[in-house]
């Protein structure tokens, strides 16, 4: 069942005006994990019923508030029953996991033109209700892309680009060696950026545990606080189904060798492989799941091997209707060699590498970084209590602990950091359609390190946001105030208001928003004391938060029964951006004046552009997407192009299925990066546009599935950040068995 945006919005508008709710979700075959078509989903004793679509998705409108029983019935399976407590105006996801003899082979691949549900506003809502742009990477996208990590899955989302592991949403972060991400990572709504560096460990959450990913674009600080300056990535983990289930996922593959003999660096072929095993059990009020996994990679260049072990688990207790206690956690140990920068005739050290007469050797290392190695352990624990008190009010409380510990060899550095967080949030729903979300959040980060020192940082925030129907539209207004301090210094207050509106019209659904975001300096940015690129990097405890006002106007419109266009114009004015800068300092020992690097509040920037995507499904077995980002990013302090922001980003995707087979591909074009930081050092290096073609194919029968991915199929050789080669052609096969 496919719902055009306007229809969905109409349903929402109607529902919000009454004492009713929307129930949506997916009817799945638990053996295969794929949707079951034509399941009869209904509320016994009423006329409320619907049939699930070809992808297993369904939507029931006008479901009365209160405790409601919902059933899913389809030939070949025993009936499934769920009882839920619904609040008026709510949108609640209820999935049905069916066990039976039917293999549902023909429902193998799900294709939808419009993912419907997001939690960007800290409560469940339809995508059409969101006042800012949201890109959704669905479970279907994750499965068919056959990738191994969350960042690989998110990397092709519209408007999203990774620069050597650092996520950019509409050019938000640029590239600062992983320091100070301007994107906030959430795992089931819990902040998960590092406590010391503020970066994101994408390998912390096993992909096998991920149900889908929401990418909230634009400033999200009015609800999420620091780091949500440029957007939010919310990773939603899988629900634990009833009964016993297991899943094995084995990956194997190989890296292509350099396309030119003069670049060859090994005789054999580089390999990669991994294995994940998940088991879950659910009965009555208790459910739990556990995932164990490991992977190895030889890497696609010299000094690039890595080994990773991971574990994650989740336990749920539902003591009574409307109450749920969830604990979850993950732990990852990642040991990997570090490719420093590639080999050039004059390296930034004193050990020359063999360039074989070339201007650069992209697969070989600069020997000053020979032997560089990192051992990185990281994990988190969360506990959440959800309580739906009545049809009008629900609340949630949660606590979390995130810990990271890295040890580097050459240079020999280490850091241990913790991030403790807590949040209490209430959501009130009024019969008139008004929804009020209010809460308070605290976070404390600490670090002990040879390069960052021994420091703590605290953040306390309170927020509130109200949504209501106004005329034919929906209006949202709210704000958040945060108090920040480091090492018990004087607290800094930051106010982050946001207003927005959604208005359905004949030419689609309009949305507009204006919001202020901020990012507090990380402990690493304040207190780092190390050497980089031959320069001393010195601390700057007096840093202020960087801030930005973001504006957006967008429209989502079904331009035909088989096509949907979503386009947004965005404009961000950023102030006091934290950037590494060269400063002249008198050395206290030698009294010489020397150049050093220090993070400073120096930059003003303007990022504006167009973010558009077109999703087409000309016939049920074929779907395609065109996503285009035009970015005009200016450094206003220097009157130049902002570094590390490509002007154009184009993504083309297509998938075709035939019975139990499917084929597809992505093409990503990213225009040549016009400006990089440290031009005196790297400005002479070659830079090219990125043109990457990924191809995929899959087969599934019953509980078995095989997927082939050839990433960078044309073995296009390119880099996005200085002297760092992006992945070459990588062929991998993923075999999945589900019980």
């Amino acid at each position: 069942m496919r719902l055009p945006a306007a229809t969905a919005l109409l349903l929402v508008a109607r529902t919000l005006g009454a004492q009713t709710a929307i129930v949506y979700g997916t009817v799945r075959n638990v053996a295969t994990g794929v949707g079951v078509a034509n399941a009869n989903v209904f509320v016994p004793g009423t006329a409320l019923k619907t049939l699930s679509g070809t992808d297993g998705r369904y939507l029931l409108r006008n479901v009365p508030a209160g405790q409601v029983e919902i059933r899913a019935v389809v030939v070949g399976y025993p009936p499934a029953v769920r009882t839920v407590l619904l609040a008026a105006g709510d949108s609640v996801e209820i999935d049905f996991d069916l066990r039976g003899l039917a293999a549902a082979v023909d429902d193998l691949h799900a294709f939808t033109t419009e993912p419907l549900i997001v939690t960007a506003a800290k409560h469940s809502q339809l995508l059409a209700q969101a006042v800012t742009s949201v890109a959704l990477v669905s479970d279907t996208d994750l499965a068919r892309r056959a990738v191994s990590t969350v960042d690989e899955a998110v990397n092709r989302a519209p408007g999203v680009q990774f620069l050597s592991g650092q996520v950019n949403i509409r050019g938000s972060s640029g590239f600062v060696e992983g320091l100070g991400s301007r994107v906030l990572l959430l795992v089931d709504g819990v902040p998960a950026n590092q406590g010391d560096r503020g970066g994101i460990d994408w390998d912390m959450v096993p992909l096998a545990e991920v149900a889908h990913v929401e990418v909230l674009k634009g400033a999200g600080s009015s609800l999420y606080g620091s780091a949500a300056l440029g957007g939010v990535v919310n990773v939603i983990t899988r629900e634990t189904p009833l009964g016993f289930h297991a899943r094995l996922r084995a990956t194997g593959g190989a890296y292509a060798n350099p396309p030119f003999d003069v670049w060859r660096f090994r005789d054999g072929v580089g390999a990669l492989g991994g294995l994940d095993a998940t088991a879950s059990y659910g009965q009555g009020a208790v459910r739990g799941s556990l995932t164990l996994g490991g992977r190895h990679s030889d890497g696609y260049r010299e000094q690039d091997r890595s080994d990773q072990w991971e574990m994650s688990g989740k336990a749920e207790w539902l003591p009574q209707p409307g109450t749920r206690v969830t604990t979850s956690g993950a732990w990852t140990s990642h040991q990997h060699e570090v490719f420093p920068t590639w080999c050039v005739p004059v390296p930034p050290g004193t050990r020359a590498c063999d360039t074989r007469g070339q201007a650069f050797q992209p697969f070989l290392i600069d020997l000053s970084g020979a032997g560089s190695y990192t051992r990185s352990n990281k994990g988190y624990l969360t506990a959440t209590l959800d309580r739906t008190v009545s049809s009008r009010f629900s609340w949630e409380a949660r606590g979390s602990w995130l810990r990271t510990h890295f040890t580097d060899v050459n240079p020999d550095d280490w850091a241990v950091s913790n991030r403790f967080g807590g949040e209490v949030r209430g959501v009130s729903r009024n019969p008139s359609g008004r929804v009020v979300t209010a809460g308070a959040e605290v976070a404390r980060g600490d670090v002990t390190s040879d390069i960052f020192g021994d420091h703590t940082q605290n953040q306390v925030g309170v927020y509130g946001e109200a949504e209501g129907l106004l005329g034919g539209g929906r209006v949202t207004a709210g704000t958040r105030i945060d108090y920040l301090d480091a090492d018990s210094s004087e607290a800094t207050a930051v106010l982050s208001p946001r207003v927005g509106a959604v208005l359905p019209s004949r030419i689609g659904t309009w949305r507009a928003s204006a919001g202020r975001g901020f990012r507090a300096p990380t402990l690493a940015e304040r207190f780092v004391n190390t050497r980089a690129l031959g320069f001393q990097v010195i601390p700057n405890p007096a840093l202020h938060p960087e801030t930005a006002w973001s504006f957006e106007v967008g429209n989502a419109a079904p331009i035909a029964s088989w096509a949907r266009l979503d386009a947004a114009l965005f404009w961000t004015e950023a102030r006091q951006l934290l950037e590494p800068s060269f400063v002249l300092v008198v050395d206290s020992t030698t009294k010489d004046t020397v150049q050093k690097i220090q993070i400073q509040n120096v930059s003003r920037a303007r990022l504006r552009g167009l973010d558009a995507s077109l999703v087409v499904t000309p016939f049920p077995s074929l779907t395609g997407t065109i996503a285009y980002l035009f970015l005009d990013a200016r450094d206003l302090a220097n009157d130049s192009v902002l570094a590390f922001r490509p002007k154009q980003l184009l993504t083309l995707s297509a998938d075709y299925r035939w019975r139990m087979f499917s084929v597809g591909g992505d093409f990503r074009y990213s225009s040549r990066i016009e400006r990089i930081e440290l031009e005196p050092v790297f400005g002479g290096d070659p830079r090219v546009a990125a043109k990457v073609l990924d191809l995929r194919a899959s087969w599934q029968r019953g509980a078995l599935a095989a997927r082939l991915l050839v990433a960078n199929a044309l073995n296009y050789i390119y880099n996005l950040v200085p002297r760092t080669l992006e992945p070459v052609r990588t062929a991998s096969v993923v075999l999945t068995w589900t019980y």
Partner: protein
Amino acid sequence: MSSRVARGALVAAALACNGGLQPTPAPPAISGIVTYRGAVPDSTQAVYVVAYHTFPHSRDSLFTFQPPVQSLRQLPLGGAAAPYSIPVESGRYEWVLAVWVKRGFTSANADSTLRETGYYRDPADTSQPGVVDVLTQPATSIDFVIDFGQMHPPCRYYTPPCP
């Protein structure tokens, strides 16, 4: 017909995806390590390494150095030493030196805002400049000292030299 379209699409995709990084022979260049001595003056605008085919014996030949002005790259001034590499034409270079540039430099006031602050020396006679031959490969290990306490105006090397 459809197979022709598919083949065409494949060729188009292949053509669209060429143009990535290619092997590039190292251009003629002079490279090495400079070692710093003395304090960097507060009035420093930049320090560059340049090379002359023949000694600039007059103001007229002051700007005949390699690389061209638009290819000049500042030396990083942190730490005790720094690597450098300057692209040059193939040929013989009599003088490879570091030039200190004072804030406010223009070509009109070059005599007062430029200083020689160190040069590559002949290994056999370190009182003399060393000659560097650049053929088709880079000339490497052209190391020398930059001493901010021993800087000289360009006219010192003119014929006749300035007082």
